[in-house]
Structures are given as C-alpha cells and as structure tokens.
C-alpha cells in the first residue's frame, strides 16, 4: 500500500507537479530547438525517455559502488554512452527521423534533467523505483514536447503530426492530419522566438489549471468542514 502511494506520488511529480519543463524549468534548449512539429517533439521525447530510463537504471544499479567524489564524471560517462548508442541506433533504423533530429540527439547529453534525475533520485533509490521515476519524468517531458510541437505546428503550418509515418513506420500515418487546408502559415511559431512565446502561454495555462484546482480544493475542504460542524 505504502509502495503504491510512492509510485503514485512519483507519477504525479514527473507528469505534472515537478515536470521537467513546468516544475523545474529545465531542458529548455532541446525543448525549443526541436519542437517545430509534433512529430519532432515525439521523436525527441522518445529518445530522451529511453536515455532517462536507462541512465536512471544504470545509476541506481551501481549506486553503492560509486563514491561521491567521482559520481558526476561517472554519471556523465554513462549518459554520454547511452546517448551515443541511441544516436547510432536511430541513424541505422529510424533514418528519416534521424535526418531531422540528427543535430539534436547528441545534445541530449547536455539535457540537465537527465543528470538531475541521476543525482537527485536514482543515486539514492532502489532500481525499480528509479526506473519508474525515469519513466514518469521522461514521459512528462515527452508530453510537453509533443504538446508544444503540436501547438507550434498547428499555428505555423496548419497540420498535425506531419510525416509521423516516417518516425515509426506506416502504422502512425493515421496521426497525420491537415487541420487547416490552404493555410498561409505563420512562420514565427516555427522559429525559436515562437517556441519561447508558445511555452510561455503553455506554462501560464498550467498555472491557471493549478489555481483552479487549488480553489476547488479549498472550497471542497471548507464545504466538508461546514457540514461536519
């Protein structure tokens, strides 16, 4: 029961409250660089997710062996090796995706959230929990990447998940939608400043949701208190 609570809490932290982008405001560089389209966001998100889960797992497995003095170089070494592996794998078997994201895949190394999770969670917790934490954090990051990519893609070119079938084969082609036919295009959102502006609005939206929920919770609790008394 207690363990289930821990899993639930980790999921909540990773997906919403302490989300890499929303909560920690980390990893904005890959976030803004690749999210021109939802497909790119999904690809980058998946790649980051794989690296994050693997690095959390490896760090957690070896956490008793690694002395505090050399932990950072060891973490960086592990992450760099993992990223290079993902890079090579994508180049070989997800080539079209790699052509688009190629420049940014190596940059996952510099994604501070991966080192951050290794340092603040995986190095102190058992394997399964660390894997779960990596999965949830990575998933939360991927969701933001896809959301931001979708918003920018719709505004900049009127499509959604364009070329998604290139990412994971024909099975994803159902995702490709042209929302606004003959759209003129609003170029700014496809450029980095547009990414900043869009993420600003999305974070504002998240805060708004939080506030609405907080207001409701207060009302509910005071309501209960009233009925009790």
């Amino acid at each position: 029961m207690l363990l289930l609570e821990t899993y639930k809490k980790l999921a909540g932290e990773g997906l919403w409250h302490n989300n890499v982008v929303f909560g920690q405001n980390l990893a904005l560089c890959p976030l803004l660089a690749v999210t021109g389209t939802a497909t790119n966001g999904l690809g980058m998100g998946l790649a980051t997710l794989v690296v994050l889960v693997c690095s959390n797992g490896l760090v957690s497995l070896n956490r008793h062996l690694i002395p505090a003095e050399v932990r950072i170089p060891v973490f960086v070494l592990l992450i760099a090796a993992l990223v290079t592996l993902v890079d090579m794998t994508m180049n070989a078997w997800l080539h079209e995706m790699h052509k688009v994201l190629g420049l940014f895949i190596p940059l996952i190394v510099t994604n501070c959230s991966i080192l951050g999770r290794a340092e603040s969670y995986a190095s102190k917790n058992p394997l399964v929990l660390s894997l779960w934490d990596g999965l949830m954090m990575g998933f939360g990051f991927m969701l933001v990447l896809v959301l931001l990519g979708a918003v920018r893609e719709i505004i900049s070119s009127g499509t959604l998940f364009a070329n998604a079938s290139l990412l994971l084969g024909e099975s994803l082609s159902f995702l490709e939608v042209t929302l606004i036919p003959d759209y003129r295009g609003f170029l700014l959102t496809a450029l980095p400043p547009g990414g900043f502006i869009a993420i600003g609005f999305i974070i504002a939206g998240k805060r708004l949701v939080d506030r609405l929920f907080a207001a409701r919770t207060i009302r509910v609790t005071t309501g209960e208190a009233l009925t009790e008394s």
Partner: protein
Amino acid sequence: MPLEQLKTRVSYQTLLLAGFALAASALLGIGDWNTRDAIEMRRQEDLKASLAQVIPDELYDNDLLKSTVIVSTDGLSNVQEILVYQARKQGRTTAAAFLLTAPDGYSGNIDMVIGIGPNGEILGVRVIAHAETPGLGDKIEIAKSDWILSFNGRSLENPTVEQWAVKKDRGEFDQFSGATITPRAVVNAVRRGLLFFDMHRSEIVE
C-alpha cells in the same frame, strides 16, 4: 575491507572510473559494430533517392553509385572536380547526374542535383538543401511549388544562352513575386551546370 572504507581511497575511485570508461567503450564498440552497415546503407539510399528524382528509373539498369567519373571543372565552379554519376542501359550511357551548388542564394548556398540526357537535355533538377526565406524563396523546393519542373526538357539551345535567366533579367524563367534573387541564383547555377556538361560531354558520355 568494507566497501564504505574502500570508496574513500583514490585508487578505488580511479579504478572505478576507468572501469566505467572501459564498460562504456565496450558498449559503444558493440553498438557501432551492429549499426555500421545499416548506417552506410542508409547513406547510400539517401544518395540514390536524390539521384532517382532526376533520372527516371527506366533509363538505367546499372548501379548509379558504382559507375562514376570524376571530371575537372576547369575553373567553371569553385570546386576543382565534380563527381558525375552515369546512368547506363545495356552498356550505353543514357544519362548523367551530378550535384550542383548555387553559391549566390539569398541566404547562402543552394545545393541541387541535376540529371542530364546524352543530348544535353535536362531530365530534372531538384533542390537538396537550402536556407532561403521560408514562404518566399523556398518555392524552389518541389514540395512547395512546381517551379523547379520548368527546367525539364530545357537545354542550352532551348532557350538560347541569353534567355537562360529570370524574366526580370529579360530571360525565359518565372521569378516568384517578392523574390528574384533565389530563382535567379538557381537559373544561373543550372545554366552553369549545362555548360559544364557541354564542355565535358565526351568524357561523361563515352
């Protein structure tokens, strides 16, 4: 000695770091071994795909990437030599293709591939990479506009050398409204490509 005590020793830390480095290298080595062939294959597929855009399938039965000839440009371009891919059918050269760069685009180089028939007639031109203004100059891409197809079937005689220019320069080819520099750069580069082919026809089509 218990692990906690061992962990404070510099020799342990050094060995651990070395151990992880070794493990990571081994991992990468295995990864490279497994993906190397696939990556090389993808690279060749990319090249083939761009060549196939400018040389129709029915024109050749050979491997384009394997029958190539290196031709000197004699100062016609800023590169010394151009690698020309030859399309052959039953031993006869039926077409040639090569990469072409327009250095004077609105923002940097425009990389193109051009396919030319043995009589000097253009089979097709495609833009591979460019950094032109989106929405304006990017109409040179086949995905954005049919403009690039207007080169099909053209040669140095059709139109005449003077008319190998955009309409604004009193030539044959349309410019886009709002952008003249990009199409002008492409037209000029294609003309230079034709001149290059013309000068070296005997070497390429033997």
